[in-house]
């Protein structure tokens, strides 16, 4: 029997991994902006 919740579980898994990558990119971007501002001042 096919589990009816399977696509929903897969959707949540993909969404979670996308959110994690997006969060990592945003943190990376914030760190980069911080270092750019330091570099521009020096």
């Amino acid at each position, binding site marked *: 029997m096919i589990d009816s919740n399977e*696509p929903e579980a897969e959707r949540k898994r993909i969404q979670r*991994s*996308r959110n994690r*990558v997006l969060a990592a990119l945003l943190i990376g971007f914030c760190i*980069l902006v911080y270092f*750019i501002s*330091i*570099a521009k001042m020096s």
Partner: protein
Amino acid sequence: MSTQATAYPLPADWRDFFALTKPRVMSLVIFTGLCGLLAAPESIHPVLAFTAILCIAVGAGGAAALNQWWEADLDAGMKRTAGRPLPAGRMDRTSARDFGVALSVGSVLLMGLAIGWLAAGILALSIIYYAVIYTIWLKPRTPQNIVIGGGAGAFPPLIGWIAATGEITAMPVILFAIIFFWTPPHFWALALFVKSDYAKVGIPMMPVVAGEKATRQQILLYALLLLPLSLLPWWIGDAGSVYGICAGVLSVVFLLLSLRVGLRQRHGEGDTMKPEKQLFAYSVLYLFALFAALVADHWLVVQGIAA
């Protein structure tokens, strides 16, 4: 433009978004952009240098995403590209378009704010050149599409150099021209021995439209032009003798291999196409070695080891 990709109930995975940026092409973009930046007579803060290369890479990724958004129907008709996120139905077209626009606009803005607006302007021009002039306008219309497409790949060292110096001089334009003239023999050598589906989807590639003989002649012509062009940085005094010697040797070998391809004919269906395969493999090595020689030469001159 019709949409062929089937509706998919699941959202696209982040790996599909990453695949949309053509990471393998990006490695060459990063390498040549970095060489342009490192070979420039002025240097910038390492963080700003990293940011400039990041912007070049992200801009190239954005242009690649827009290219795949536009060509989703064509990609679906070719074996080599049918597994890409859009033709395979793993992503909807709007997401790909928005992703491409976001990367393109984001990279140009960051380049402008962090590095300078001249570099940002050239980056914007390179994205428009690849996504609009090449992909949408000229690729489906002319067998010279590879020549025109070469321009898109030639922008990174130009942008890298401008990011470091803040101005356009003869040298970055020569670096642009070297990649521009290198691209046709590189791709046409590949096109001669790889059976492509381009004809099936109506893209006029040179070997299909003009025939093998004309393609071989054009390979030879571009290789001939590449020899003096590659020596020009040394000739005008912007590169030293180490680069001059390396460029001379590399380009003469390139010309000899092109000569072998240019003067031969295919010997039936059983032909192994060894000269064409050798030229293609060497062309990749050629570009990496030439740009590495440029950076090494600059470093040796700065250190006072070479003139």
